[in-house]
């Protein structure tokens, strides 16, 4: 065999956030801090397997009646229904109306992808690749990749982060909604916006919903942090439930990576709220076809853990406690970081650190300042200025605060 088929395959750049962690790993500096990739850390800066997860895993391993047979294409039924309930609420009228269904997917990414693939095939006509897909500016970078690889050719930003006021650009956002072509798809972060940590208030959500309903725009929620943001499942699902109450048909891509700490088991759920059960049934049947050529059927372990937990009141309560533990530690770090920056007299206002919510904070550091942080101080964060609050601990917070102080005062 002479010429290689793959001679012309170019070297692709590494995914930025993983490159950051790789560089961090290689760094020998004793005070290095990783504020990059979004995974929870304890105050000892260690990964945390939730106690309820450990408990349930033991139950699973000890249960000799369990086997490793295929799940149905759409996933573990008890998982799907329990997961949708978590998002929509136990007493959701939509669930009572039998117009809520779900597809168990590989993490939040998988849920987004199945939803995107479905929309490309069946939404706004059939096989329509030109429906505009709106993602927030900025957004989780993989949103672009998911919709692009699903075939969409017109992926646009909607105004979101206002760098000057360090908050939500509501006017810009509402304006984009008014101007978007009808039937455009909007990817909304249900809570704990990634990367800015800035969420609309309830009143702001109401304004968003009003325009979306009036202009016939499609609602696609990305819900990766329910419970993790405020510590309350209900509070973090408010926007989703509000939209459902307003009569929207919508998708919710749920991830259980963070709120269950099950990152590597790839536990996700695409919740589908349709007008009625007939529409729901046909939609799910088409999603089944998409799943079959993507991964056939989803992995069992993570779904079993989540399902057992959500469906048992005791375990559910224990889980809520574990989630609150994580959320509380993040809130504490936010408080302390802001307090330390104020104490240092670091130029600028730092209220956004405590006003923002969830795992991430958009510090407002510019690329040069970020470079300083990484190169001079060995504090690793994304070029956008995004930090993972979970990477902060009582042991490193002084060093980080000092580093930010230096970056802001020394580098313009």
């Amino acid at each position, binding site marked *: *065999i002479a010429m*290689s*088929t*793959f*001679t*012309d395959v*170019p070297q*692709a750049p*590494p*995914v930025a956030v*993983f490159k950051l962690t790789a560089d961090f790993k290689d760094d020998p500096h004793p005070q290095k801090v990783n504020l990059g990739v979004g995974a929870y850390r304890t105050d000892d800066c260690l*990964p945390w397997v939730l106690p309820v997860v450990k408990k349930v*895993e*033991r139950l699973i*391993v000890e249960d000799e009646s369990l*086997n*490793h*047979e*295929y799940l149905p*294409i759409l996933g573990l039924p008890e998982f799907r229904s329990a997961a949708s309930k978590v998002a929509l609420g136990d007493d959701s*009228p939509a669930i009572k*109306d039998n117009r809520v269904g779900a597809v168990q*997917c*590989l*993490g939040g*990414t*998988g849920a987004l*992808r199945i939803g995107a693939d479905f*929309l490309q095939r*069946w939404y706004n006509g*059939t096989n329509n690749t030109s429906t505009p897909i709106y993602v927030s500016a900025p957004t989780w970078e*993989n949103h672009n990749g998911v919709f692009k*690889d*699903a075939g969409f050719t017109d992926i646009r930003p909607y105004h979101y982060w206002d760098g000057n006021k360090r908050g939500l650009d509501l006017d810009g956002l509402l304006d984009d909604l008014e101007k978007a072509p009808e039937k455009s798809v909007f990817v909304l972060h249900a809570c704990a916006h990634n990367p800015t940590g800035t969420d609309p208030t309830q009143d702001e959500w109401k304004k968003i919903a009003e325009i979306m*309903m009036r202009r*016939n*725009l*499609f609602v696609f929620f990305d819900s990766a942090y329910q419970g993790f943001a405020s510590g309350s499942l209900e509070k973090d699902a408010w926007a989703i439930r509000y939209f459902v109450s307003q*009569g*929207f*048909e919508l998708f919710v891509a749920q991830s259980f990576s963070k709120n269950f700490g099950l*990152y590597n*088991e*790839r536990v996700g759920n695409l919740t589908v709220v*349709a007008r009625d059960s007939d*529409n729901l049934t*046909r939609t799910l*049947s*088409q999603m*089944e*076809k*998409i799943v079959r*050529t*993507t*991964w*056939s059927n*989803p*992995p*069992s372990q*993570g779904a079993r853990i989540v399902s057992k937990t959500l469906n048992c009141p005791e375990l559910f309560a224990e889980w809520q406690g574990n989630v609150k533990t994580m959320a509380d530690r993040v809130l504490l770090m936010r408080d302390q970081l802001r307090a330390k920056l104020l104490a240092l007299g670091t130029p600028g206002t730092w209220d956004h650190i405590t006003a923002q919510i969830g795992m991430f904070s958009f510090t407002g550091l510019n690329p040069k300042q970020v470079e300083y942080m990484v190169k001079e101080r060995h504090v690793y964060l994304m070029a956008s200025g995004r930090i993972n609050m979970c990477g902060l601990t009582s042991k490193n917070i002084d060093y980080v605060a000092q580093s930010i102080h230096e970056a802001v005062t020394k580098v313009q």
Partner: protein
Amino acid sequence: WLLLRSGKCTSFMVGWSSNGPPDPILGVTEAFKRDTNPKKMNLGVGAYRNDQGKPFVLSCVRKAEALIAEKQLDKEYLGIGGLGEFSKACAQLALGADSEVLKSGRNITVQTISGTGSLRIGANFLSRFHAGPRDVYLPKPSWGNHTPIFRDAGMQLKAYRYYDPSTCGFDFKGALEDISNIPEQSVILLHACAHNPTGVDPRPEQWKEISEVIKKRNLLAFFDMAYQGFASGDIDRDAWAVRYFIEQGHNVLLSQSFAKNMGLYGERVGGFSVVCKDTDEAKRVESQLKILIRPIYSNPPMNGARIAATILNTPDLYSLWLEEVHGMANRIIKMREQLVAGLKKEGSSHNWQHVIDQIGMFCFTGLKPEQVERLTKEFSVYMTKDGRISMAGVTSGNVGYLAHGIHAVTK
């Protein structure tokens, strides 16, 4: 409370779009479940059953799970390419420990979502980067899901002759003829062993000739190996064709599944490999595979890969696994023999030798759709319309009943 303004609701269901038809393979199981006949048999989906007709969790799997539980590992994200210990062991299992490819590091192997996920990543990769024609040649027939996988990835499907219904065996002449006419640089998909759905595999001498023609036509060989160990009971024997092709200089694509041979079906354990020209090409290909994987599911699930890696990398467990795979394959072989014996006993005048000659989980009985329908309706024996039965669903307890039913609809 609920304001459903029907006119304004964004209904994403286009009015005329219909329910998707039930998946032909998995749909069989659904119908089986609804049947109340105590003698019913599910010979549809290919999942191994023991002689009591029950799912079989391998001992080596249980032992590996216990070991893993002790370790109290964290649940941090795997890299996009998955668990390193797994993908290395996975490649070694397929290629052999002494493989020149492994020594030179010119393969890239990534962990995938079992065989389906592997094929899809491969198909996506070809769609994006393959310079040759967009045609993928499948054997006729092939696993039903191959076609939509490649199609959804943007490739086009063609076929080469494979199964000879007149002999219930391999149409070697037809295959060679068709392959020799495939346009250069096209992709040809080959089942490494235990062809699904027919159970008909080429003999080594035949593989050698196939390799020659593929070389002559400069085709890209894509192996689907979902049954290594499960076919003959011997993992090296079942990988022979893949290894031979590589020795002959083919830089192959390879999909592996651990669903059947480790019984890890629902854990979704698989691998996708590209044998490249050199390590530089392997790096480039790897980087692009990651770009493809990330927008589908970001990174793969840990549990199954950890179990598989533990088994492959722990000598005691590895030996135990080889024994258990051998056991599963043997039971299947025994059932084949018993089925043929049973048919003879029933007084069937047909030649059922192909049931014994075929290999792996599936048997292409040669039954016609009308006969299949009767077998299902009158005897509650569930199988796919093409006459394929999963031998794994046959037990010493029901083989007689099956023989009786088959004879009844074919006499």
